[in-house]
């Protein structure tokens, strides 16, 4: 709990892994003299813990800043907003993030408890907001805010140009990092935005709407290398998960140059053996680029943005990618022996049975590659939502939009698919996600412990994915066949009952075998995995503290780079 009268800020948001958004705000606030607590809100249940934490503080926070980055978490954060006021919290409540920005007018209209929205990137905005609150200054002079005016009408202050990434403080790294087989993991970014313009992506929409619109910004290599070196030497980070929406640049030569420059910079900073995880678009996958990633930056896994292998799907999603890109990328990554996983948006507003078949064939061609599938969702701010609204095809409200697929036949296939595949594909226990993690454990063992690694473990991981995929394809084909033969209105009771039982039985078997493989790896290496943070345990360890400890005080200090630059 807060122990001093020093103004402090409660930063509330998901923290399953290090939340870079919140942690960069924490660094910015710390740099301006405000202490912060990062209060994890990973589930609805955490809302109550956040409430208790704030209510029991000796000194209430100057402001509570709530993450509204994820649209599907908005209800939790809005409930927290109501509860804070009902508990008598009188401090300022602000929110931010992608969804908060896009829905700022509606949120401020409907929730008087919410005082402001920090629109777009907020490192500078939140600092100026807190300074104004502390000093009793008007908020209308602060750029980048959504507010209410004196008459209670919602308004926005002028936009703030996106900051130079090199000028931003590094993310606060308080708390225990996650780890895989004893190797510490840090998340980070080398860029913001994405050069592509996919119709369903709120990130592309967000960066496209900034003023001036800057869709894609890179951190200077030296700044990125300094942070990685600091993490490597000070935090013992060995696995770097890049959350860049796309790690690569539009031109192959530029990507290659940046990879080599980063590798050289890390070597100059005495950064040793590391592993990296990146995201890529299929059209970015070139042999020399990924060979360099593998050989010089320890590439351990690629999350490939396939999304669809149907020509129609690629058009609807405005991927700017052709089927040939998907196929070539998968083929090349396999040749290089690089672990790849992907998601497929099997269902979109225009999906036909023929399009679905394209994607089923893609799944069949990559049966031993971990992947998942679902429906494209309509996120705030995206061109796809705008299109569906224009076509009057949306249900719901600004918190979330549902839609029917193009034909009754496809809608029926989608509904039956979700009915049967829900537990397999969605949520923390989803086996499709779990097997991505199991394979990652194998790859980390292969990368860091070649002397203990056994090729049969990789074969086992692939076999698990193969069995899951084949079972999924079989189930999907059964659903398609049923709807095509029986019609979209047919009674599916028998199909659903039988399929659900079969899918759950397969999952139970595969889950057990995945657990055994994971345990084998941990025994072989002699270390365990901790893939999720426990931010509340970290808070409890730090007891009454509500800001950075002395030991953590330099975690965002760029001066620290001197220590590690050699």
């Amino acid at each position, binding site marked *: 709990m807060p122990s001093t009268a020093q103004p402090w800020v409660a930063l509330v948001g998901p923290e399953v892994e290090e939340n870079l958004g919140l942690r960069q705000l924490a660094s910015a606030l710390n740099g301006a003299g405000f202490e912060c607590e990062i209060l994890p809100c*990973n589930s*609805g249940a955490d809302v109550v813990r956040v409430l208790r934490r704030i209510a029991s503080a000796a000194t209430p926070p100057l402001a509570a800043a709530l993450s509204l980055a994820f649209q599907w978490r908005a209800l939790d954060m809005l409930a927290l907003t109501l509860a804070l006021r009902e508990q008598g919290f009188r401090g300022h409540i602000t929110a931010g993030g992608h969804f908060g920005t896009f829905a700022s007018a509606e949120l401020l209209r409907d929730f008087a408890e919410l005082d402001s929205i920090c629109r777009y990137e907020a490192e500078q905005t939140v600092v100026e907001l807190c300074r104004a609150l502390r000093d009793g200054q008007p908020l209308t002079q602060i750029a980048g805010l959504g507010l209410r005016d004196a008459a209670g009408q919602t308004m926005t202050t002028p936009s703030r140009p996106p900051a130079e990434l090199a000028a931003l403080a590094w993310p606060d790294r308080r708390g225990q990092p996650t780890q895989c087989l004893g190797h510490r993991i840090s998340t980070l970014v080398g860029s913001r935005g994405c050069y592509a313009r996919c119709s369903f992506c709120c990130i592309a929409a967000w960066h496209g709407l900034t003023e001036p619109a800057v869709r894609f910004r890179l951190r200077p290599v030296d700044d990125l290398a300094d942070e990685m070196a600091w993490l490597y030497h000070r935090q013992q980070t060995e696995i770097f998960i890049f959350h860049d929406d796309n790690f690569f640049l539009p031109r192959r030569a530029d990507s290659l140059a940046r990879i080599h420059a980063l590798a050289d910079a890390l070597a100059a900073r005495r950064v040793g053996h590391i592993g990296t995880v990146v995201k890529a678009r299929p059209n970015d996958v070139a042999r020399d680029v990924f060979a360099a990633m593998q050989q010089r930056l320890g590439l351990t896994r690629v999350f490939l943005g396939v999304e669809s292998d149907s020509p129609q799907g690629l058009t609807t999603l405005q991927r700017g990618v052709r089927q040939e890109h998907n196929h070539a990328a998968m083929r090349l990554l396999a040749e290089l022996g690089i672990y790849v996983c992907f998601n497929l948006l099997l269902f979109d507003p225009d999906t036909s049975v023929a399009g679905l078949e394209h994607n089923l064939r893609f799944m069949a061609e990559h049966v031993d590659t971990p992947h998942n599938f679902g429906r494209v969702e309509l996120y705030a701010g995206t061109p796809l939502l705008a299109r569906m609204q224009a076509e009057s095809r949306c249900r719901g409200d600004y918190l979330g939009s549902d839609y029917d697929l193009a034909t009754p036949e496809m809608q029926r296939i989608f509904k039956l698919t979700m009915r049967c595949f829900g537990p397999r594909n969605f949520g923390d226990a989803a086996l499709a996600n779990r097997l991505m993690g199991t394979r990652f454990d194998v790859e980390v063992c292969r990368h860091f412990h070649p002397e203990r690694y056994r090729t049969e473990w990789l074969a086992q991981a692939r076999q698990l994915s193969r069995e899951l995929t084949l079972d999924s394809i079989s189930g999907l084909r059964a659903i398609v066949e049923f709807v095509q033969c029986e019609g979209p209105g047919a009674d599916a009771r028998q199909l659903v009952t039988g399929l659900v039982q079969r899918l759950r039985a397969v999952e139970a078997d595969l889950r057990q075998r995945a657990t055994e493989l994971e345990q084998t790896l941990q025994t072989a290496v002699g270390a365990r995995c*901790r893939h999720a943070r426990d931010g509340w345990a970290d808070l409890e360890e730090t007891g009454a503290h509500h800001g950075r400890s002395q030991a953590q005080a330099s975690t965002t200090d760029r001066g620290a780079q001197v220590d590690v630059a050699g």
Partner: protein
Amino acid sequence: MPGEGNPSTVRERARNHLRGLLATSAVTGAAAQLASCIPVVCDPMPPPLVCDANQTTDYYLYQFVGVQAHWVIGAGNVYSVAVVISSYATAADKKIVFTANPVLVGATLGSVDRTETQVSFSFTPTASVSEVRFDVAINCNAVADTLRLRVDVSGPRSNNANIPVQSGEIEG
């Protein structure tokens, strides 16, 4: 940009959601814990958002809830049924919260273990019944509702054998 929505509806949903969270906290006394080993997934697939006006049991089974049941042989060779009902709405979403123990027709309730996301219980079917019905109270985004389920117990019984759990409202 987001659609207009209905202000009172959106606000009321948030308030109902809060009620549900507070009620759940009072019942369970603690927050849900994260699994110790959530896999590293860069972009977990989001569950589809489905807005159905009339939320039937089938809607929940279709979207958010998994049910499994199997026979268990006990002392005196008496068979009981073990049932597990789980919310598989993503942990961060909490659409479904179990708020009360199941109410059975055609059976005697045995042990019950209930958390906000899972209800495990057992029951012994009343002699001569062929079907056991059970209702489970839930909150869906803090709106009270009931799962209405049934199992056919007339078939052959063997230890650990699965029993299909059905809704009378299975989509069809």
